[in-house]
């Protein structure tokens, strides 16, 4: 692996390698990993605001003993109108790995073509966010010890959530049995469902009924209210497609509830203390997974 641009570029063996490496990183987290990337410089270039992704990449680089250079578009030559291509070429001359988030779709692919050093996609518009998918798969595998055969439900605004499309692909790759739960208006695009079925022979059900008795994993995302012209309609859907303690009464006692965060109304705070809520643990896993990705990229694997 050189660049990490899209989940579509990864085969099962690549994903397994990253997950195995991430498990090693998690064990070494506190001290032993320090020095693995000694003498290397990692640059985080975020053209869009981000808390978790940005900070966990920075934490990952620091844990590996790399030096960090943070790029600020608002006070750099980008503000003077410099093209992304020129900016990437310049930074490529200073550092060993580039981590890029950009509002335009395909920005990471473009940057990877331009740069000689590895480029890691930390989100390109509505397109891809591969390290999120990797950390989701890592979390599921860590909690459930496997992915194949697991009953995984994805719930919420499946039409607009980038996370869900990539995760569907990743879960299909590893043979999970997937249920898509959403309002009819917010169903996932048929294209990605068909692609996942054709590529991996995945089992995918679609429904608007929430039934968690059999589910091993419930992955929730928020309804993107800003995309609705009718705010009342959005509120109504959010009320219906939320996870509360009453709903969890009948759910599988071994259920793992995940969420890419930030969460708003779709999971009320009282759920946080339920032992099935695993989303903060999930967010924490962002560090070892991104350590693995940075390490493998910097070593040219």
């Amino acid at each position: 692996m050189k660049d990490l641009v899209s989940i579509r570029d990864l085969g099962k063996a690549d994903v397994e390698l990253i997950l195995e490496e991430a498990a090693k990183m998690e064990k070494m987290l506190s001290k032993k990993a320090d020095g693995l990337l000694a003498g290397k410089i990692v640059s985080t270039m975020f053209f869009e605001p981000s808390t978790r992704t940005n900070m966990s990449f920075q934490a990952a680089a620091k844990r590996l003993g790399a030096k960090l250079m943070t790029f600020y578009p608002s006070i750099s030559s980008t503000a003077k109108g410099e093209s992304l291509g020129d900016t990437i070429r310049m930074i490529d001359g200073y550092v060993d790995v580039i981590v890029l988030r950009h509002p335009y779709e395909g920005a990471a692919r473009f940057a990877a073509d331009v740069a000689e050093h590895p480029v890691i996609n930390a989100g390109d518009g509505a397109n891809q966010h591969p390290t999120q998918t990797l950390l989701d798969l890592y979390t599921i595998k860590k909690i459930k010890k496997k992915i194949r055969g697991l009953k995984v439900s994805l719930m919420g605004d499946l039409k607009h959530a980038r996370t869900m499309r990539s995760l569907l692909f990743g879960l299909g790759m590893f043979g999970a049995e997937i249920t898509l739960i959403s309002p009819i208006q917010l169903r996932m695009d048929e294209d990605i469902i068909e692609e996942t079925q054709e590529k991996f022979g995945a089992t995918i059900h679609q429904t608007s009924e929430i039934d968690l008795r059999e589910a091993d994993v419930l992955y929730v995302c928020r309804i993107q209210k800003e995309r609705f012209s009718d705010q009342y309609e959005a509120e109504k859907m959010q009320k219906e497609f939320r996870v509360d303690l009453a709903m969890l009464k009948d759910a599988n006692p071994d259920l793992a509830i995940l969420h890419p965060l930030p969460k708003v109304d779709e999971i009320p705070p009282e759920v946080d203390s339920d032992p099935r809520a695993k989303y903060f643990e999930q967010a924490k896993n962002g560090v070892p997974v991104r350590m693995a990705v940075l390490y493998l990229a910097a070593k040219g694997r």
Partner: protein
Amino acid sequence: MPLKVEKIAEGTVIDHIKAGTGTRVLALLSNTYPLSKMVALIINAESKKLGRKDILKIEGVFLDEKTTNRVSLISPHATINIIKEGKVVEKRAVETPKSLSGVVKCPNPKCITNTERAETTFMSAGKERFRCRHCERLFSPEELA
């Protein structure tokens, strides 16, 4: 009575164009080549194969591969005849290509190729659809043409 259209001596005849799309093929070519010599567009000609078809005859222009690929997006079953000294020297069927590089713009306004100097590539994704190598969205040939 069938319409008589003059034969051309040097140039390209695009035959079996899907009826009604000939004007779009002509528009495409006029953006690509200087059409300074005779051009004939026959619309709704009778065809045994297609029922109706359009035909385009262009004197002095020899269609290259890139342009042939773009014609395929508009009319996937057209045939190209290259004419030299009044004879057909090459006959090729337009094929839907496996990939299209540097041929068309990406229709997604949020695709990076529309703001940076980047060559677009579209890969065939089956079912007559193409995926942009950059933004990874799917497009029909119609959308790309």
